């Protein structure tokens, strides 16, 4: 039972790191990045290729850096030019990007499943409640907790974090106070994409890499973002932990229909509280 709980935490943690990027981008740009699952997938592949050459840690660092740069470019060349359009337009464009990226990765790395090894430092198992549990999975949980703590510290304590929160509530007024909201958005989208890269790379040793790997986690991260309350950081954390647990139980008990379980949970939450678990706020 403890093991199942921990496995749920592992998936919940990965889901949180991915979803919080969506929430960050939504806060500043009022759009949902449909290509976020593809960024996760690209992150995993870049991490895989670099780790083959220079080891896991280099793969992790390079992947996060590459995706951060990609995020900055995404903001500069997609979100910024389209910011006065209907949000639907931007979503359609990111959806187009999703299809292109999936095909691109398939062309570069092929359709076959690839497997990545955890770093030597974190391989092996520990004994927990009489069963063995991989150290790497514990490290993933720790990484997710670090990201959560780091982000909330940054958003609540730093000056830039204050600007980010202010801009999420009212970008126009924030801009009038002298904050450069364009630069801020670029930074935030870059961080969001970098987190997708981080999530992709640290999940690579746990799952098989395939060009469609972004699909199933994208569903769950959308469910997390909507269930948590669109735009809420706390909501994303709570919902990710919850969906992580039910997803894992679904995989164990009804493997065929596991993908449906988070949706059912979400439907129940939305009927109970139409605006999600936590109302978006400062």
């Amino acid at each position, binding site marked *: 039972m403890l093991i199942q709980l921990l496995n749920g935490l592992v998936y919940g943690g990965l889901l949180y790191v991915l979803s919080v990027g969506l929430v960050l981008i*939504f806060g500043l740009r*009022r*759009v*949902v990045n*449909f290509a976020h699952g593809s960024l996760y997938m690209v992150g995993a592949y870049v991490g895989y290729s670099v780790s083959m050459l220079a080891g896991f840690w280099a793969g992790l660092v390079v992947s996060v850096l590459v995706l951060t740069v990609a995020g900055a470019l995404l903001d500069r060349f997609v979100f910024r030019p*389209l910011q006065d*359009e209907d*949000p*639907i*337009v931007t*979503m*359609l*464009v990111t*959806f*187009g*990007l*999703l*299809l*292109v990226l*999936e*095909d*691109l990765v398939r*062309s570069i790395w092929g359709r076959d499943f690839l497997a990545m090894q955890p770093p030597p430092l974190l391989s092996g198992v520990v004994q927990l409640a009489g069963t063995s549990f991989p150290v790497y999975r514990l490290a993933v949980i720790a990484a997710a907790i670090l990201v959560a703590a780091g982000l909330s510290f940054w958003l609540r304590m730093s000056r830039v974090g204050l600007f980010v929160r202010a801009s999420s509530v009212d970008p126009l007024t924030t801009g009038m106070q002298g904050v450069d909201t364009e630069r801020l958005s670029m930074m935030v989208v870059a961080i969001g994409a970098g987190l997708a890269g981080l999530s992709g790379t640290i999940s690579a040793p746990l799952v098989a890499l395939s060009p469609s790997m972004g*699909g*199933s986690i*994208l*569903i769950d991260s*959308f*469910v997390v*973002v*909507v269930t948590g309350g*669109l735009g809420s950081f706390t909501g994303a954390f709570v919902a990710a932990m919850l969906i992580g647990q039910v997803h894992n139980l679904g995989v164990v008990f009804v*493997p*065929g*229909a*596991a*993908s*449906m379980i*988070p*949706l059912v949970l*979400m*439907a129940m939450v*939305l*009927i109970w509280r*139409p605006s999600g678990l936590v109302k978006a706020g400062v």
Partner: protein
Amino acid sequence: MSGKLVRPAAIFLSVGVAGAAVPNLFGSPLVLTLLTQGVINAILATGVGFLVRQNGLVSFGHAGFFGLGAYIVALCANGRVMPVELALFIAILAPALLALLLGVAMIRLSGVAFSMLTLAVAQAFFELVLRWRSLANGDDGIAAQLPQRILGLDLSTFQQPGSMFVVCWIVLMAVLLGLALLVNSHFGMLTLAIRENEERARFIGYQTILPRAAIYAISAAIAALAGVLFTLYNGFVTPDVLYWSLSGEALVMAIIGGTRAVWGPALGALIFFLFKNAAGDLTEHWPAIIGGTLIVVTVMLPRGVSGTVMMLMERLGVRTA
């Protein structure tokens, strides 16, 4: 009143008859096969476009309803538990009911959240079909063992491109006619009013959730109908019919054609078909082509062809319906 309807009715009839004559013009079975597939996709795109037109909502997951329709026919035909006609009916009704239920829960959300969930639901069905091997045979798909006679017609009517093209064309025309009548009805006007300003519609005493959920259900039923035709024609379904690249393809068609007119997406499907023929050798990179086209048309052609045509006609002082 009757004078106003003469011109649209004449255009409708001539397009309908001209389309039905197409199989006589093209001898090549390959072209006909592609055209038939194109008309099936045009029906799907019509469903997607209708949702945008009446509700102002964009679905990224209509492949979900298309695929459900396609799989229900195949599974029921193989299970041999009911007459195939009943299976066809259920294959359209069940996705529509599912959409109605989902609609009631999702339509209260903002347009952004609604769109996210349409994608999530469709992708969840894709995963379901892929993983539940005992039900749907996963990646390999299933062959539908259809009976020799369906709806009083020979099975070959549905599986020969020449005759199936005419069947699909008649269905497309019927769907367009039905939708044209629907958008001019009280219900059509009401949903447009809700799209424009939900709060005001509510203040003058209308229920606003159920009408929009009903539009979502109708558009899902049209997608499922296209899926049913797909299975009848191909006799085979794979999880690809639920995948998001098909939803993307339907969106591309709807956007190229424009959604201001009910017939816009179908026109878009025709244009897209010509484009697809020209892309020919690149079909290996089909998803990337769909994605790239989606980006280009969304940015360059926001009104779509039908919207641009209607705008030009209005400028020239021609009345459009």
